[in-house]
């Protein structure tokens, strides 16, 4: 493993242990993301406020009513399957500063991004995996959200 990959892994792993996104590598290298200064919508402070404002926060392209990207739509559909309709969704296409700022914050290069209880959990691929292996039901339970799929299974058991 190259030194760069090892470093990225340690930063990522350490961030996961701390329970929040670690310092982005671009910042560590001294390069600015352009969205870090002052109180702009892409600043760490602004993003921090957004990810903490609700147990379930999604940064996506488009809106839950009209996603504009297949990967963002997948996230919306998965949440809908679990009966999660009350969450905060932010359309990064409307705000270039936020679009860059959220990537800096999580040190994650793509959209969509899903945050549970203020903690970055991943993008569409990871949410799909969590849905398929049952982890998402458990994570929602920790947030006090009962997945609709549990009730669906209960109904099926009754029949």
């Amino acid at each position: 493993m190259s030194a760069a990959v090892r470093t990225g892994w340690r930063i990522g792993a350490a961030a996961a242990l701390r329970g929040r996104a670690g310092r982005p590598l671009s910042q560590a290298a001294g390069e600015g993301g352009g969205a870090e200064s002052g109180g702009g919508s892409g600043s760490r402070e602004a993003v921090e406020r957004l990810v903490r404002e609700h147990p379930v926060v999604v940064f996506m392209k488009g809106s839950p009513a009209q996603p504009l990207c297949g990967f963002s739509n997948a996230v919306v559909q998965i949440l809908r399957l679990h009966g999660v309709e009350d969450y905060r969704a932010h359309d990064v296409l409307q705000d270039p500063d936020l679009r860059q700022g959220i990537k800096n914050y999580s040190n994650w290069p793509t959209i969509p991004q899903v945050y549970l209880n203020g903690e970055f959990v991943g993008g569409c691929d990871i949410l799909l995996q969590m849905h398929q292996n049952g982890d998402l039901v458990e994570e929602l339970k920790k947030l006090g959200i009962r997945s609709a799929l549990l009730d669906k299974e209960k109904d099926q058991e009754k029949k």
Partner: protein
Amino acid sequence: LPEFPLSCSLSPMRGPLLAAARGVMGGAGGPLALTIRAKLTAALQPTHLEVRDDSPRHGGPPGAETHFGVLVVSGRFAGLPPLQRHRLVHEALRAELAGPLHALQIIARTPQQWQSDPRAPSAPPCLGGSKRERRRG
């Protein structure tokens, strides 16, 4: 667990990723595809690696090389949760993700996981994204 009842393009199919990749692999020799392949090989020493150019499915012309899917099977992923596995892949492709690589679907498995389940879901359909194109049928 209930079946994942999304649109048909998201239903887990058996082998289409492999089949499509095999069909495409012969031709997926664009410069970015080759770079992705080389960098992932160097960083993760995969026992199995598939690199799929999804750009045509997102409105780009063939060979646009903007949207990729990678399937990486590597012992390096052992003991790592999905988030950390994906971060390893991102780190290997950091320059590309800062540049022309616009989207990256990642499936990251250990050799044991891949052996016990050699299936992978296909990528979701494009809904236009930044280009705001018409929705694919």
